[in-house]
């Protein structure tokens, strides 16, 4: 599950961690839009390098690399699919006429597939930084201040709060059933799936019981008392946030300008092949 490791928040602090999540999200969305706008390899390589300074500033190098590593499987799949489709239907996405015959035409397809893969990687890279540098409660707060109904924000933070608890409980249930002779490692596929029933049922029943207890506790502490909830914490935009916002807007403007007026050559065109 290493791709998930790369998205999990770590309690580290840096300037990046202190940035307002809404602005960070805006920045990452701009990167996302730029990755969609451009489909040529040189442009995407440039885009890939943009998040790097943020990774170093945030001191999350190792985790970030882990998320990329986790995405390798999917990346290979995207590359292969693009290459195969590009080979059989080259006219769809390139200027190749007819079928792929010459070496140059192969290279064009190769470049195209790499570009598509890199686009996916840029996506993972940027969103990973967002999640790695934003604590769940900051995220919840950002959702709230973005006027998303409180019920959803609450559901989000409560879910995050209970994930480790449920994981622990699942382990305890597995231990309890193993101690009654349940072998989880043996048997064919069907048998293994059936063996998970004694794990799933207690897990689900307990989760339901837990939700009931939570609901009781919530009601007892005045849930629903007022239409407008107030908040102990508040997200305030600071100078660094304004700077990042300005940078993002600038990046987006330049990108759109380039996209409209300046066609970026593909690598094969650059190498005059």
């Amino acid at each position, binding site marked *: 599950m290493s791709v998930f490791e790369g998205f999990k928040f770590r309690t580290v602090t840096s300037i990046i961690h202190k940035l307002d999540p809404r602005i960070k999200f805006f920045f990452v969305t701009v990167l996302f839009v730029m990755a969609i706008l451009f489909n040529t390899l040189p442009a995407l390589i440039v885009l890939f390098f943009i998040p790097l300074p943020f990774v170093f500033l945030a001191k999350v190098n190792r985790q970030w690399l882990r998320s990329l590593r986790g995405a390798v499987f999917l990346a290979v799949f995207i590359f292969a699919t693009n290459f195969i489709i590009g080979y059989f239907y080259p006219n769809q996405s390139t200027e190749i006429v007819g079928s792929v015959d010459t070496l140059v035409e192969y290279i064009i397809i190769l470049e195209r597939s790499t570009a598509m893969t890199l686009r996916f990687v840029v996506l993972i890279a940027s969103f990973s930084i967002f999640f790695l540098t934003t604590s769940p409660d900051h995220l919840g707060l950002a959702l709230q201040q973005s006027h998303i109904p409180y019920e959803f924000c609450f559901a989000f933070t409560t879910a995050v709060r209970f994930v480790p608890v449920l994981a622990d409980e699942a382990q305890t249930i597995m231990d309890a059933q193993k101690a009654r002779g349940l072998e989880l490692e043996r048997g064919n596929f069907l048998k293994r799936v059936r063996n998970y029933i004694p794990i799933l049922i207690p897990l689900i029943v307990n989760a339901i019981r837990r939700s009931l207890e*939570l609901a009781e*506790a919530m009601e007892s502490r*005045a849930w629903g*008392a007022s239409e407008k*909830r*107030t908040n102990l914490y508040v997200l305030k935009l600071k100078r660094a946030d304004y700077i990042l916002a300005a940078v993002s807007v600038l990046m987006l403007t330049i990108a759109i300008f380039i996209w409209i007026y300046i066609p970026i050559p593909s690598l094969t065109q650059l190498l005059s092949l």
Partner: protein
Amino acid sequence: MSVIETKELMYTYPGATNSSIQNVSITINKGDFVILTGPSGCGKTTLCRCFNGLIPHFYNGTLEGEIVVAGLNVVDHKIYEFARHVGLVFQNPENQLFALSVEKDVAFGLENVAMPRDEMRKRVDWALKITGISELAERAPDELSGGQQQRVAIASVLAMQPDIMILDEPTSFLDPLGAQTIFEVINEFNKKLGITIILVEHRLDLAAKYANRVIVMDDGKIALSGSPKEIFTSEEARLIGVGIPKTTKLYQHLLQRGIKLRDVPVTPDQAAKFLREVLMHD
């Protein structure tokens, strides 16, 4: 002055054939520290849920009889209206903490009633201080021990500044030292802040010394009500299955053999004191 008054209260859960509590008529006065006890299934948990409106509003079912809490008729008011008067602390500390930091949890109720931020901040700090967990303010709930989690739950309820606090077997999952800390904290609330306490407990040996009243329920009805001394020496309590503290049992054994101590001891210190008198006297 009564803070809770019930008259022939009866409640049946939806779909159940028998009622969980019948004919319950009790009066709880301001400043009382009541221990509510009785065998499993006797209705104590059900009765507690009636005191803050969870019954009938959350659980539905059929509620008959009268019940007035903090001057409000429970049937006519919503659960959140009671939250400022009655705090309810549950058995499992884990399932009462939903936020990602302790102080956010303590602020939860205050956020719900839309308290302004500055006032909220002061209240939260106050509640944390009185409960003795100020240093835990920014910690996440899963980093805390069971005892600490339960104290956070208590602080969250205290922050609403209720007149009455009900705790339903709050120390079930805690070791004896953890349990003692909890009882000492709620005793502070009772003696220093004047909050009326209703404590549902089986561990009478640890809790008895703080209470001025013990109510024993059995099979949905109120069986006994009196001071801890009266209840612990009552034969009926023993028959119902109430766990009489060993201290009082010692008193009774000696009494059977003709030795009478000055008074009924409820704690080991008292017993030692009375025994000393008898042993030195002879």
